[in-house]
């Protein structure tokens, strides 16, 4: 039983870290935000497992949900601006 739980814990931790890394490394704003939302939702799951259901709810609704929605709107604007930018001749699209 406890070995199974430990395996579950390990799996959650590894997935959590992979998602965080993916969100951080992604250059494309929209994908980064979506990965971040996935990370937040998984974090909520982990907290539910750690006997913090209040926090799981808060993280899912606020941390992943509303922060995610805010950043997603910003990323959408950024992508739109970029596209508009690239379509105009003579201006450089940003390459960071």
């Amino acid at each position: 039983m406890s070995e199974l739980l430990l395996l579950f814990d390990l799996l959650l931790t590894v997935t959590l870290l992979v998602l965080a890394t993916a969100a951080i490394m992604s250059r494309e704003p929209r994908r980064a935000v979506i990965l971040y939302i996935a990370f937040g939702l998984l974090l909520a799951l982990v907290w539910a497992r750690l006997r913090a259901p209040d926090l799981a709810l808060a993280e899912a609704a606020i941390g992943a949900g509303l922060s995610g929605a805010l950043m997603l709107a910003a990323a959408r604007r950024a992508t739109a601006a970029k596209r508009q930018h690239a379509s105009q001749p003579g201006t450089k699209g940003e390459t960071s």
Partner: protein
Amino acid sequence: MITQFLYGGSGILLFLLGTWSFIVHPPLIRKLIAINVMGAGVFHTLVALAYRGLTAPADPVPHALVLTGIVVAVSATALALAFGQRLDRDHGSSADDD
């Protein structure tokens, strides 16, 4: 105990990942994700430390701290995004300043 170490350790790792990304990635949206991952690391560490096994109830004090932290983080994120949007509007380019 091992659960605390596993999750607490991953919290520290998240904190460092966030810090690193905050330092090296200039675009605003990436900095904000970095700050939020950093915060998630701190919160995750606190939640892991509050955990006292499957049978005992967890320590409610760190939980309350984390809840406060989550709300503060979303406030800061919203404000920073509004700053970024204001810069876009003035400049007509994306928020990739500094």
